[in-house]
C-alpha cells in the first residue's frame, strides 16, 4: 500500500448544490445494473404484450377490436404501458434501495440536507422514467405499426395523435418515476413498496374504479396511462365506460400534485428518521 503523506492535495469539499446532488444521484443510478435491467424489462414486456394483443385483435375472444379499426390500433399502440409501472418500480428502488443496502449513511454524510436528497432523487426518478417512456413507446409503436402493416391495413391514427401519445407517455412515466421515489421514501421496505406498486396499479385501481366509476380518472396510474392515449381503465382489469379521462393538463397537474404532496409528507415524517 502507498505511504500516506498528509496533508494531501485535495480540493475543498464544499456543500453540494442541487444540480450537483442530481448528478450524484444520476451517477449512482447509472453505476449499478438495476436501472438497465428494468429498462430491459420494458424492452421485453412491451413488445410481448403488444404482439399478443395484436394477435388476438378481432378474434372476438375478449381481445382488442380488429386492427382495421381505430379502437384496435389504439389498443396495440397505446395499450402496452408496462413502462409506467416499471418507472414507478425504478423510483421505488432509487429511494428504498438506500435502506436495503444501508447506503443511506454515506448518502447523508455527503449531503446532510435530506430534503434536497429526496428532491434530487425525485428528479432522477423522473429522468429514468422518461427514458423508460421513450423506450416503451418506440417499441410499442414499432411493433404495432408492423402488425398493422403486415395485415395490409391503413394506419387510422394521425401523426399528431401519435406524437401526443408519445409526449403523454414520457410525461406519465416521468411523473410516475418521481411518485415511485416518494413511495420508496414512505415505505422503506423495498419488497413491500414494489409489491404495493403492482397491487395498487393493477388491482386496487381496477377495484376502486370499478366500484366508483366517477373517481376513475383521478386515480394516479389510470390518469398516467390516459396521458399515453390508453383508454381509461384499459391498463388495468376494468375498462371504464361512460367516464371521460382527465384532459392532458389536468392529468399532468394531478400526478405532479400527488408527487409533491407525497414528497412533503415524506420530508416531514420518514426522511427525518434516525439512520441507525
Amino acid at each position: 500500500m502507498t505511504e500516506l503523506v498528509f496533508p494531501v492535495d485535495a480540493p475543498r469539499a464544499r456543500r453540494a448544490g442541487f444540480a450537483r446532488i442530481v448528478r450524484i444521484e444520476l451517477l449512482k443510478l447509472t453505476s449499478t445494473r438495476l436501472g438497465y435491467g428494468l429498462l430491459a424489462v420494458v424492452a421485453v414486456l412491451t413488445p410481448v404484450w403488444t404482439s399478443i394483443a395484436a394477435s388476438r385483435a378481432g378474434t372476438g375472444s375478449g381481445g382488442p377490436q380488429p386492427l382495421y379499426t381505430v379502437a384496435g390500433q389504439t389498443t396495440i399502440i397505446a395499450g402496452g404501458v408496462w413502462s409506467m409501472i416499471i418507472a414507478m418500480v425504478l423510483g421505488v428502488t432509487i429511494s428504498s434501495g438506500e435502506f436495503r443496502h444501508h447506503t443511506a449513511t454515506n448518502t447523508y454524510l455527503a449531503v446532510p440536507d435530506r430534503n434536497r436528497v429526496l428532491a434530487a432523487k425525485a428528479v432522477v426518478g423522473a429522468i429514468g422514467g422518461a427514458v423508460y417512456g421513450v423506450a416503451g413507446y418506440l417499441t410499442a409503436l414499432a411493433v404495432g405499426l408492423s402488425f398493422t402493416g403486415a395485415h395490409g391495413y391503413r394506419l387510422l391514427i394521425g401523426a399528431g395523435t401519435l406524437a401526443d401519445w408519445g409526449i403523454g407517455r414520457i410525461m406519465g412515466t416521468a411523473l410516475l418515476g418521481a411518485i415511485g421515489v416518494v413511495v420508496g421514501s414512505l415505505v422503506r421496505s423495498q419488497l413491500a413498496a414494489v409489491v404495493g406498486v403492482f397491487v395498487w396499479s393493477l388491482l386496487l385501481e381496477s377495484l376502486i374504479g370499478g366500484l366508483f366509476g366517477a373517481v376513475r380518472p383521478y386515480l394516479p396510474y389510470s390518469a398516467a396511462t390516459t396521458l399515453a392515449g390508453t383508454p381509461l381503465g384499459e391498463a388495468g382489469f376494468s375498462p371504464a365506460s361512460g367516464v371521460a379521462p382527465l384532459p392532458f393538463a389536468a392529468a399532468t397537474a394531478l400526478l405532479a400534485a400527488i408527487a409533491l404532496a407525497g414528497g412533503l409528507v415524506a420530508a416531514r415524517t420518514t426522511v427525518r428518521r434516525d439512520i441507525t
Partner: protein
Amino acid sequence: MATIQIHGLVKRFGAVTAVNGLSFDVTPGTVTGFLGPNGAGKTTTLRILLGLVSADAGTATIDGLPYRELPEPLHQAGAVLEAAGFHPGRTARAQLRVQALAAHADESRAEDVLDLVGLTAAADRRIGGFSLGMRQRLGLATALLADPEVLILDEPANGLDPEGVRWLRGLLRGFAAEGGTVLVSSHLLAEVAQTVDSVVIVDGGRLVAQGPVGELTGGAGGAGLEETFFQLTREASQ
C-alpha cells in the same frame, strides 16, 4: 484543525437510554480511543455527531457546528461507520467517483485513495464480492477522499488482516501527526493501546473516564489499558 465537542448528550430509544448526559472533547493532533462494552452508546454517539441520529438533549459539534451545518462537511469530517454501507452492485471505483462528485474533487482523487488503501487492483470489481477487510479499506478510502480534518471511525480494524491493522495504525498516527483529529471506537484494547494518545471510556451511555492512556493506566501500556478498562467499567456498572 477541528475539535470534536460532545456536551450533555442524551438519546433515548423508547424506554432505553442509549446516551445519558455524555460530555467530552477530542482535540486536534491526537488519536482518541472511544471505548466501552457493547451497548455503551458509542455508535449512537458517533451517529449523533455525524447528524444521522437526532439527540434528545445536548450538543455534538465539529469545529463548533453540528455536522448538518458544516459548510464543507466532507472536508471537515470523514467517517467510517458501517462495513456494509455500499451498494453491492457498484464497483469500488464508481463508489469513489460518487464521493468525488459530492466532494467537488477531481476524479483522479478516487485513484489516489484507491492506491492509498491498496484497492487499485480491485477497483473495477463489484463491492458485493469484497471481503470485510476490503470493505473497510474502501470505507477508509471514502472517508479520506476529501482530505478531512477529522476522522471518525467505528471499529475500523474489523476484518483487517495483521498487515492491514498495522497500516491503519500508521495511517491514524500520521493523520494526527499532521494536526488531524481522530476519534476511533474499538473493542481491540491491545490494538487501541498501541494507537491512541488518549481514551474516552463510556458505559451505560455515561462517561466513565477520559484522559491520556499513560495517566489512566499508570504507564502500564496495553495490558494496563485492558485491566483499567475492565476495572472502570465494572465500577461504573456497580
